[in-house]
């Protein structure tokens, strides 16, 4: 029995904001199933008494003095934008029809 169905892959694609095609759904459903079954073996040795490691180096928050420093200017920050207007990123409509 597959660990992941075609419908679940379609749902994942939606969550990940990927407008995948029908052909891709067929391809990915099979491949993701094989991959997920293979990686599930981590459960074989991951017992309850083992603490998880999220990062190889123990992390502590890093602070700096709150002083103004040189940074990217507005023009530089917008230089790669697909569209900009009045010194701002121009985006498609955000609110739904009902708004």
């Amino acid at each position, binding site marked *: 029995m597959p660990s992941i169905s075609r419908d679940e892959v379609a749902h994942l694609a939606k969550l990940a904001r990927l407008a995948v095609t029908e052909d891709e759904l067929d391809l990915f459903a099979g491949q993701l199933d094989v991959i997920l079954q293979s990686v599930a073996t981590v459960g074989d040795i991951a017992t309850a008494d083992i*603490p998880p490691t999220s990062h*190889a*180096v123990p992390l502590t928050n890093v602070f700096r003095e709150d002083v103004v420093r040189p940074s990217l200017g507005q023009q530089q920050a917008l230089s790669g934008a697909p569209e900009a207007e009045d010194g701002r990123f121009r985006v498609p409509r955000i609110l739904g029809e009902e708004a």
Partner: protein
Amino acid sequence: MTNDLIHATAAELAAKIHSGEVSSVEVTQAHLDRIAETDGKVHAFLHVDAEGALAQARKVDEAVKAGETVSPLAGVPLALKDVMTTEGVPTTVGSKILEGWLPPYDATVTRKLKEAGVVILGKTNMDEFAMGSSTENSAYGPTHNPWDLDRIPGGSGGGSSAALAALQAPLAIGTDTGGSIRQPGAVTGTVGVKPTYGGVSRYGLVAFSSSLDQAGPCARTVLDAALLHEVIAGYDEMDSTSINEPVPPVVAAAREGLTGDLSGVRIGVVTQFQGEGYQPGVLRSFQAAVSQLKELGAEIADVSCPSFDYALPAYYLIAPSECSSNLARFDAMRYGLRVGDDGTRSTEEVMSLTREAGFGPEVKRRIMIGTYALSSGYYDAYYGSAQKVRTLITRDFQKAFATFDVLISPTTPTTAFKIGERADDPMAMYKADLCTIPANLAGTPAMSVPSGLSDEDGLPVGLQIMAPALQDHRMYRVAAAYEAARGAFGGASL
């Protein structure tokens, strides 16, 4: 003359440039000519910046003429993986989603290279977002292995390693998340080093899996890699995971190693990385390396690290999970591609259409696996368990390093496979990283140094040397001694 220049090591070139025997412009032009002559076949570069390279070379030449003291690698050309931002110079990460993007700032690695007078020839090809082991996942076409143009140069940093093997550059920069420096190094007969995690700044390195990504040096000799390591390493306040410790003395260690004495050095052979699935020629090359290290005076014994058998599955949960989060920034709003914005579609629709058009299949697969592994109901079984395996791998390393100074294994289970051979089988492709992944999960340094050619196919094999965190110099010493005994590889004949 030109021929001598492209065959020379970075250390030799630096000496010649700094003594005024040749100019950096001559050296740079020789490599630009070599790229023009060979890159139609190899396709190591996505972008060649001849103008920028020659301008930097002229600056170094002027400084040398004026009698100024220059940095040890000033004037020497380098190939930069296209994952590092370069101000005003295209940075694509091998993806269509960033095609044509001109970064407004330099990565810390880029800045350090420029400040050291290193000449950046251009940006090298890579698997899209550094996801892959063959450079076939580049949206701009594959790179070909200079040893056999029908074969892969490894990945994700296949462009950087192929450039070294094709004598297009004596130095290169790679990034290694699961083996992307070491595996290409192994299959192209070049040296590739993944430093201790946090040893080299990730600022301006386009993120794939932030807890694993680590930039490092690539070269044709161990000493050259060490010289480059010291240029790019060091604490950076722009990277919150940067380690605030002195840079390990890797150049001194490489020079010590070149004397050829490894008396008293304790080397552990990881027993998990041999046997089934390993090409016999690779194992024979590895055994020959073990014998050679013994002759140099090293004490060698087997060591078992049972959790390493689970490194591959843990990695293919952790890296996709982090990538699914990191790549959310490609939202078609602030930089990069935007498609489908015809005035009728919502932001969410434009985002989904753009990501569909801009990402290749492997990137989409990994984003979806990560999304799955992090979703409620599956988190504990997948991502949570993978994090526990990470703990076990770190413990196995700690145990092994209580007895041994360094650990060794083959870098990859096989030599370079044919282009297309594993393209439709993601799991087969993933297995190329079998031996390299544990060091990423533990954050420890590891490198690959050529161990000759496999006797059955005549293709390069790599010896992997692993050391404890912040002890990068230990592996350089062993690698340099081994290289001195075996003889350094030149490039491939094209």
